[in-house]
């Protein structure tokens, strides 16, 4: 069956074994949906492999019969169809028979591999496409909870694993068949003593598989862990290469990496020790069985040479399926785990569907929130009873401390990435739940906090929201926001390929490109989520000028971090802990001397600058707040599930972090980390 495998890989796959949440029949049923189109091919492949293993059994029988046929002491006369065959004819017949059977086996085996690779290619593609399509249309909620790395694993390795599982399954069937038929042949053709000798080798095979799947698994996990640590160290060193160069610390990092690398080496050495003790055992045991059979043959005296020969060959053939099988079952479990995870995806809730009576968005771009309540987890309200009205063409600034709900309000709800629990959001007179999402997303342009660029040219990145834009349009926009100078200074100008999310660009430059992208798409409603936070003051002012000309009459939401932006706004909305506490113009709010006036004093005013009394500010200095990462909090026992939920809802725990936390929690619960 193909030419893949090796014990190391087997153990690796066993080490991947994870808990399965669904009962096996459910998993198999789900799998059968994908097998449907391939039933014919699979049955054929299975049949061919069975036929192949039959030839494998017949081969030694032919050899043994041949040996016995020429043994004069046995005095056998072979009569075929009434004709007594001469010994010479017998030799020719047996030899020919062996050649034919051997070649036939070869063709059967090769064809099976070929058939299975076709099934594998088509089926994996089918599953992969389904999983991908499901994921890309899955709810934001689901996608946010999974890290992008995990999602990629679902699409690549897990789908692959499903097909590998299928192959393991077929191979188990074949091995079982081989085992049973070998046993039957031995039972029929050889004395029972030899059967016993063959069976005596089973415990050894089981011992082998036991050691490999327990100790072996532990060592493999250890290797992976140390490997991961070295990998992390190298990744960090490459990411910070400019820093280490600037401080002449390359050598220091090398020494640190060597220490970790040595750990990985020690683990690998353990693996080598185990494998080199266990693997040669197979052939040694098979030799010992040979000796035992030879001895038994001599002892019994009634047994022919052909039979001794057959016994030794079959015994060797017997040992392998046993060893193979005992390792196959845990491998099958790994595959079922993958099916389980793939099913998780396929059953994940899809993104919010359009209402049956959904209509395209009209021409009124005023926005109103009416008693809006929202929570990510139905427990912790992120927004509480928010009501406000924005006229078409107005610019609204959202102000408030971190976690007050600004991003949720503008970036997540208005775009309908999430649905609200209570109240309503309207654009014009239309409730957004009744607007076709395609037209809604077309109308809204979002520039998120974290600029995200695709691996493509700068030009393609800017055109992402408007594929049919001309290059001229792109240049015009870029000139307007002052992006053209730095883009032209890039090695290949607009054709420069952005790599690794834009490592050759500064954070500000990445942000400007995302701004150009959104501006080019020309949305009717614009959401700027601290979109200019990483720009220098000069570039920011250019962007603002462009925004004023291009989006003058557009409804705009700005999550502001600078005074100048707030001055431009028609209306300021102040949020605190999910509640709307103040609303009005800058002057009105300053006069009110409420929360806004406070924030203005500490955060914004100084940007106007210079004459601040340093002494006075430092005198009233309070301690800076220490913000511990969730992992550190957990290690200190400061986290309970309740708190985690709250922090997830507040966006303080990223999906990646949540994953790690869960892992850590599980490890803490089970005192021994592995097993």
């Amino acid at each position, binding site marked *: 069956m193909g030419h893949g495998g090796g014990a190391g890989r087997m153990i690796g796959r066993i080490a991947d074994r994870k808990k399965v949440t669904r009962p096996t029949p459910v998993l198999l049923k789900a799998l059968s949906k994908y097998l449907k189109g391939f039933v014919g091919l699979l049955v054929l492949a299975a049949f061919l492999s069975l036929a192949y293993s039959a030839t494998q059994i017949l081969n030694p029988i032919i050899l043994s019969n041949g040996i016995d046929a020429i043994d004069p002491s046995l005095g056998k006369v072979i009569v075929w169809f009434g004709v007594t065959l001469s010994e010479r004819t017998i030799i020719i017949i047996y030899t020919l028979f062996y050649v034919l059977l051997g*070649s036939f086996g070869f063709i059967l085996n090769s064809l099976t591999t070929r058939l299975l690779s076709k099934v594998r290619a088509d089926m994996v593609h089918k599953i992969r496409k389904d999983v991908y399509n499901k994921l890309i249309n899955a709810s934001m909620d689901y996608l946010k909870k999974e890290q992008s790395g995990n999602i*990629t694993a679902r699409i690549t390795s897990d789908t692959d694993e499903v097909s590998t599982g299928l192959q393991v399954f077929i191979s188990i069937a074949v091995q079982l068949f081989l085992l049973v038929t070998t046993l039957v042949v031995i039972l029929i053709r050889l004395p029972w003593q030899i059967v016993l000798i063959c069976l005596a080798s089973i415990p050894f095979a089981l011992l082998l598989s036991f050691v490999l799947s327990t100790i072996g698994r532990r060592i493999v996990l250890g290797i992976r862990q140390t490997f991961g640590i070295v990998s992390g160290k190298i990744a960090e060193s490459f990411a910070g290469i400019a820093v280490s160069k600037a401080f002449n610390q390359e050598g220091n990092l090398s020494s640190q990496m*060597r220490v970790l690398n040595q750990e990985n080496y020690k683990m*690998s050495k353990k693996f*080598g020790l185990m494998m080199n003790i266990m693997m040669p055992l197979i052939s040694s045991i098979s030799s*010992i069985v040979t000796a035992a059979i030879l001895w038994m043959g001599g002892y019994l005296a009634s047994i022919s040479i052909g039979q001794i020969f057959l016994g030794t060959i079959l015994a060797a053939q017997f040992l392998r399926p046993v060893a193979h099988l005992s390792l196959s079952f845990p491998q099958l479990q790994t595959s079922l785990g993958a099916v389980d995870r793939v099913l998780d995806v396929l059953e994940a809730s899809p993104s919010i569907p359009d209402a049956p009576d959904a209509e395209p968005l009209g021409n009124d771009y005023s926005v109103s929130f009416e008693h809006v309540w929202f929570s990510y987890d139905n427990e912790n309200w992120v927004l509480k009873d928010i009501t406000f009205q924005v006229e078409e063409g107005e610019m609204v600034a959202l102000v408030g401390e971190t976690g007050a709900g600004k991003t949720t309000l503008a970036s997540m709800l208005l775009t309908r990435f999430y649905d609200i629990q209570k109240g309503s959001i309207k654009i014009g007179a239309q409730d957004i739940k009744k607007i076709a999402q395609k037209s809604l997303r077309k109308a809204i*342009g979002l520039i998120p906090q974290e600029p995200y660029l695709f691996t493509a040219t700068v030009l393609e990145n800017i055109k992402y929201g408007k594929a049919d834009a001309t290059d001229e349009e792109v240049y015009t926009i870029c000139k307007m926001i002052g992006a053209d100078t730095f883009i032209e200074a890039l090695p290949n100008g607009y054709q420069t390929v952005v790599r690794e999310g834009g490592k050759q660009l500064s954070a500000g430059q990445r942000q400007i490109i995302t701004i150009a992208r959104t501006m080019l798409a020309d949305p009717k409603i614009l959401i700027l989520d601290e979109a200019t936070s990483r*720009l220098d003051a000069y570039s920011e002012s250019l962007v603002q000028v462009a925004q004023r000309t291009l989006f003058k009459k557009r409804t705009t939401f700005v999550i502001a971090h600078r005074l100048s932006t707030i001055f431009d706004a028609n209306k300021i909305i102040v949020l605190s802990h999910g509640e709307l506490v103040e609303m009005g113009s800058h002057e009105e709010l300053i006069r009110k001397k409420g929360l806004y006036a406070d924030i203005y004093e500490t955060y914004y005013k100084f940007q106007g600058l210079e004459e601040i009394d340093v002494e006075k500010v430092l005198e009233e200095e309070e301690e800076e707040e220490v913000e511990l990462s969730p992992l550190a909090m957990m290690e200190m026992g400061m986290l309970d599930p309740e708190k985690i939920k709250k922090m997830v809802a507040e966006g303080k725990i990223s999906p990646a972090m949540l994953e790690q936390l869960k892992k850590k929690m599980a490890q803490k619960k089970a005192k021994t980390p592995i097993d």
Partner: protein
Amino acid sequence: MVTQQITQKKAYKTEKTKPPRQLATEKYRSMNHWFWSGLTRYPGLMFISITFLIINAVISILPGVLLGLGIDVLKTEGYGRNFIIIVVLIISAALIGWLTSFLSGYLWGIASYRFERDIREEFFDVVQEHSMAFHDEHDSGILLSMAMNETNQIRFAYHPSIRQVVSSFLSILLTTSYFFIRIPIGSEFIGVGNWPIGLMITFGFSLYIFLAWVYARRVGPIRRELATELGNVSSASQETFRGIEVVRSFDNEKTEEMKFTQVSLRLADKIRKEGYLSSFYWPALIMVLFTAASFGIGLWFVLQDNGLMSVGQLSSMLTLLIQLVILNFMLPIRLLAIQAGRINARRIWDVMTFKDPLIEPVKSKKLDWSRPLVFQNVSFSYPGKEKLVLKDVSFTIPPGSRVALLGGPGSGKSTILKLLLRLYDPTSGAIFLGDTNLREVSTFDVRKDVTLVEQDIFLFGASFKDNIAFSKPEASMEEIKTAARRAQIDKFIESTPKGYDTIIGERGVTLSGGQRQRIAIARALLAEPKLLLLDDSTSAVDIKTEIRLRLAMEELIKGRTSIIVTQRLSTLVDSDLILFLDKGRVIDLGTHEELLERCSEYQFMLSLLPRGKELINKKKESRVKTPKGG
């Protein structure tokens, strides 16, 4: 980020001179020399391993040979002492076989794992040593994969592949020789001793090995294409889901689906192709054919009963051949692995022998910081690119001055900083300190005196202490604390749960932008640079952070030449010189007053900065006043 705390190893003092370390690219002549050095790095281990490998090859054919002898003995003498001896011998051979196989495999494994460890370190060292020109154009993900997975593949070529291939060849050789030899043991013989059969077998095996090699050559490339396509599928999905909000807000799900289907189909196509190419392993058929031939001829000889061959010998012969099939079942995979290992070694070697445009001087000249720093007609384009990002830039900075670097995006500010750190050399023109051309000073010596605080601060996933002491690993706790105090970050650090031992990042504290900047300032303070480069283009958001930061910067600038990229009015006003750049050219150089007076671009720039307009207006007012006074 590494989530491990490392006890810092002070292998050597980084103080004054660059530690001597011979790089792999200097030690080995070629990729082949490097790849095969795995055999000679641990000669003791390898020698013993190969010795046991040979012993093992001989011993592992013994059971098959003894089986035939046993059968013959049984036939002629019957069940007796000699027969029992043979049975015991087979069992002993099995046990010794296990022992020698273990020793050979384990020792070989140790040598190979060490080799893997060594080449990973060599690769890491060489890549770290490459200049920024290299790092700009190489994807760090691919470099990481080379350091981890491809070195792993090379090891796989050694252990188990090369050893097993050698072992396979040995057993083929020994089996072949069984057909040539004929050793008398008592009244029986070991070996066939028949030249025609021997020659036939020799020819068969030669063909076998040749076809196996052809197979590996044919399947190898498609396996690599397969790996590439798999990588494409993986990165395609990674891209989409990391940017899912962007995909969704531009309503591009369908486009992405289509793109992905394309990539996935290409992979499916390769899987199919690989299956088709690799399914027919022709050498297996060769084995079948000459097992059959030996079987037929053997039977014929036995039938002649003229002493040419006994039944036992026939059994031995067949057992050995069948054993070979089993032994060589992995041969094609092993050949493929060796081939893959060599291709990986080629890729790594090419990366390691990157032709660096930055050339270190044979003997480094001394830097005298009491002399002026001069840019003389400096033009610069990134290596391998034509576009000039600095065009004919000339200026002089007197020692000890405070210089502000001003300019829009893409004006070349950060390039000037990189040139001063000698991360790159000018494409034409030169940078001088006094009479010393920076090219004549080793990068190590330049960077010892020049320190850069970047805009996007990079901190390691290690403790506060380790991060601050990064610039000076041997610094005492006292020094670290002083640096932290001067950088206005000491109180904050002390308020964290473990103080200076608190880890930064995922496993510890999350830092704000201002705090990261102050840590970077503390780190720079410890380095005690002669020339300070500071990129301060974005300003912090709240007033207290702002003030702390400014105090920290003041500490850092004190008493040394500094070049600060800034748009902060106070910094501009306070500096001795403002270097104003636009599109890679120097527009003007002078004090704030001078530029405000004569440079219209400067006035425009200021007008766009917060409070800039007020300043200009004030100036205008004073200008109106001046004639009155004068």
